[in-house]
């Protein structure tokens, strides 16, 4: 083999493997939930350690997802100085948990190959400024990285930026991220919107009981680049980056409006009124020249909107490539994979839609009898991975007909969306991080 070709092959394979390995944010590369070149196993067994590379105990209570860059995994957590705060699963009502003891908020780096903790940084200490929902955590937002910095959003405790060794570069106080029951500001449920890195900035969505805004901060300095105030209900959705032709838009999912913003200026480009539902949790999904937006409360009429990108002003039904009147999940973000949109509702009804037409391809129950699904599904190697709150990871073959390949038991509550990295699936359960792979 000619030397040049060999070098090129090596270069390509290195590039490919690095790409297959990185899972840099909530739902991974481009917040897609898809690890295109990864090959995690479809079955494993914790008791016998079959296909389980390592298990690492994690302190505290956190629903944030692990992220991966190179040979490191990063997780955030909030640790009570005394006692272990509990979490309710299933439909857990509207009550708040009032954690009155001091907590430390932490960023932890873990060796991807061995699962060992490389460093553990205490970022902030204090009593939580707000309560959380009994089903929530004080560290629900997933951190984001671009390989140079790591950004972690600890809700009302602030926005923090670190270098890859965990040294704090800057922090910003976003004020209270006071989210809760829409019609009653006395309910504090705790935020979950994750920061989104776009080029040299990080974008945050702070839709709360009053004074909601979307803002961008310079990754290098922490300087606020823009901040756009808007009238919104509390939401828990993560902003998405969508590219349409030459234009890039930041799309936010809110209870009053779904909106597109210019990432350079923060100017609102378009908005679509959603007067059917209020409480928004799932992240918008980019699908070709559309963005698919889901979620809402009450539960009976949660629509799915496929909105054409590139619009301006107040959008109407004409801007919808397709929509449904119902079928959205409440919590988890759906998954676009090989032309199909997979929507798993909180009670485990999995529907596949043609992402171009919105036609439903199938509807099936996954794990009937589970308490619920809060984690978002992820995909790799022709398979979907759906983690239930009970800790069952269902592996479903991707495609136009439903086929359950395996049910793998994690043995404890699982709220976080798993990460996929190379040959591994990385699952955060209530007390540990599990590296699944051969």
């Amino acid at each position, binding site marked *: 083999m000619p030397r040049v070709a060999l070098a090129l092959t090596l270069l390509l394979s290195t590039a490919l493997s690095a790409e297959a390995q990185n899972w840099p944010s909530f739902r991974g590369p481009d917040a897609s939930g898809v690890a295109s070149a990864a090959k995690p196993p479809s079955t494993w067994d914790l008791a016998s350690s079959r296909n389980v590379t390592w298990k690492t105990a994690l302190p505290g209570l956190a629903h944030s997802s692990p992220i991966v860059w190179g040979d490191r995994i990063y997780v955030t957590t909030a640790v009570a100085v005394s006692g272990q705060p509990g979490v309710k699963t*299933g*439909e*857990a*009502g*509207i*009550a708040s948990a009032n954690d009155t003891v001091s907590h430390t908020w932490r960023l932890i780096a873990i060796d991807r190959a061995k699962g060992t903790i490389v460093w553990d940084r205490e970022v902030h200490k204090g009593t939580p400024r707000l309560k959380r929902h009994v089903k929530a955590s004080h560290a629900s937002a997933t951190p984001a990285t671009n390989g140079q910095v790591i950004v972690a959003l600890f809700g009302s405790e602030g926005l923090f930026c670190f270098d890859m060794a965990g040294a704090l570069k800057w922090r910003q106080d976003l004020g209270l991220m006071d989210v809760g029951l829409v*019609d*009653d500001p006395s309910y504090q449920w705790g935020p979950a919107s994750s920061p989104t890195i776009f080029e040299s900035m990080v974008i945050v969505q702070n839709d709360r009981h009053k004074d909601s805004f979307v803002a961008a901060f310079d990754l290098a300095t922490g300087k606020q680049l823009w901040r756009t105030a808007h009238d919104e209900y509390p939401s828990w959705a993560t902003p998405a980056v969508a590219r349409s032709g030459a234009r890039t838009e930041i799309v936010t999912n809110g209870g009053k409006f779904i909106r597109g913003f210019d990432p350079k200026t923060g100017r609102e480009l378009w908005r679509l009124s959603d007067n059917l539902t209020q409480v928004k949790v799932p992240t918008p999904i980019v699908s070709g020249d559309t963005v698919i937006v889901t979620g809402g409360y*009450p*539960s*009976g*009429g949660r629509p799915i909107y496929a909105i054409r990108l590139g619009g301006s002003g107040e959008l109407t039904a004409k801007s919808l490539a397709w929509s449904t*009147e*119902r*079928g959205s999940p409440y919590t988890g973000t759906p998954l676009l994979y090989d032309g199909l949109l997979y929507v798993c509702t909180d*009670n485990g*009804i999995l529907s596949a839609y043609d992402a171009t037409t919105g036609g439903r391809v199938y*509807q099936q*129950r996954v794990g*009937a*009898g589970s*308490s*619920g699904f809060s984690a978002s599904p992820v995909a790799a190697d022709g398979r979907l991975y759906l983690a239930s709150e009970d800790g069952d990871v269902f592996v479903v073959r991707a495609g136009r007909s439903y086929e359950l390949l395996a049910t793998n038991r994690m043995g404890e509550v699982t709220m976080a969306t798993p990460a996929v990295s190379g040959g591994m699936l990385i699952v955060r359960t209530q007390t540990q991080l599990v590296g699944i792979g051969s």
Partner: protein
Amino acid sequence: MLRRLPVLAGIVAISSLGLVARSDPPKDWPMWGGTPDRNLVSSMKGLPTSWDLKSKKNIKWVAELGSQAYGNPVVSNGVVLVGTNNEAMKDPAVKGDKGVLMAFRESDGQFLWQSVHDKLSAGRANDWPFQGVCSSPLVEDGIVYYVSNRGELMALDIQGFRDNGENDGPFKEEKQTRETDADILWKYDFMEELGVLQHNMANSSPVAFENLIYISTSNGQDESHVNVPSPKSPAIIAVDKTTGKLVWEDASPGDKILHGQWSSPAVGRIGDTVQVVVGQGDGYVRSYEAKTGKKLWEFDLNPKDSVWPKTRNEVISTPVIYENLVYIANGQDPEHGEGVGHLYAIDPTKRGDITQTGRIWHYGDIRRSISTGAIYNGILFYSDFSGFLHAVDVKTGKPFWKHDMFAAIWGSPMVIDGKVYLGDEDGDVTVLNADRTLKVIDESNMGSSVYSTPVPANGALYIVNRNQLFAIAASPTAPAAAGGK
């Protein structure tokens, strides 16, 4: 003016309790369940199995309700009654969140009058915002009985003030006496009188036997979800129909109430005893002698090793009394989501704690349920909150089939002319053969969640979605060509 026909009313009550063969069922639908035994079955013929909101195929009329409606409609004396909230602002002078019972003309859906209740100042703890009136009324002898969001048993003139403005009954403090206002005959405030603290909402649908009205009080835990602040307040009461005075009460659940109490009572003659049967907050179903309130039996609907709230359930379903047996499932507040459930056939001729002795059969494949059963042709149809409709052998509890609606079911299966009608949270109303083999006949969508049960009355089907009341009837002039599904 109230038409007082005590003799005739007595005959109706007796016939519906099974003393007279029910060859010609009532055409009205005057209470939750249609009859005191609460069996959701009607032999009414000619109702459509499909309709279409867009093309208006088979849609007789549509009435706008408030923004939420959880009660089931009842139809009597040419009036359709349904509970909702005040977001429809039928009276522009009445502003803000209220509990509202609305009355519509059966023939064309014209709004007639409404009964409006302020929200309780305690808020969510006793009177959840925007849920309105959740009770389904009972209409007897031209009088409308229901439970308000304020924990009152109300008695209203079904004609309102449309009877030449006559203010019937002893209650004369109505603020307004216009044609669109409610004419209150009496009310019994069981929060005030009995110290009841209903958890989140008082919702019971009344039932009657002779001169007594029976309701569950919804007495329950406070917002801590630990403490029962009023354990000695009754779970069930009997109130004199004429005077509005308390006749008997029972507080058997005491401080063992797991959460709230949202079951409604059923009445039936079993042997020579007329029994009032109701699910209660400690997970038991209990029966009382109708006249005296003497407790006859109790049955624990949960396995002994069950643990609240994971595996032990409360009871929200209404018992069904059918051929000397009682059928009921347990479940939990929809806010608690899905979980395991239990469905039983119980022998109510036994006395005392009959959890063992009165157990005819148990069906364990059901999930948590807040539905009520329908028994027809030897089959018990029972739906669960996870979205399954179960068809089981009424004699043995053995399953015939199970149908997946793929959406939560808050309402109940209703059998009409050999077909099961069932709505779900996605707003779909599915019609199936009420038979031993599963066959879906049709499915129509109501535009928003159906939390109610479709009910038949006088040749029409009434369905409530989140904020509208639909009268559905076969229309010979339906634009078949323009219709389609």
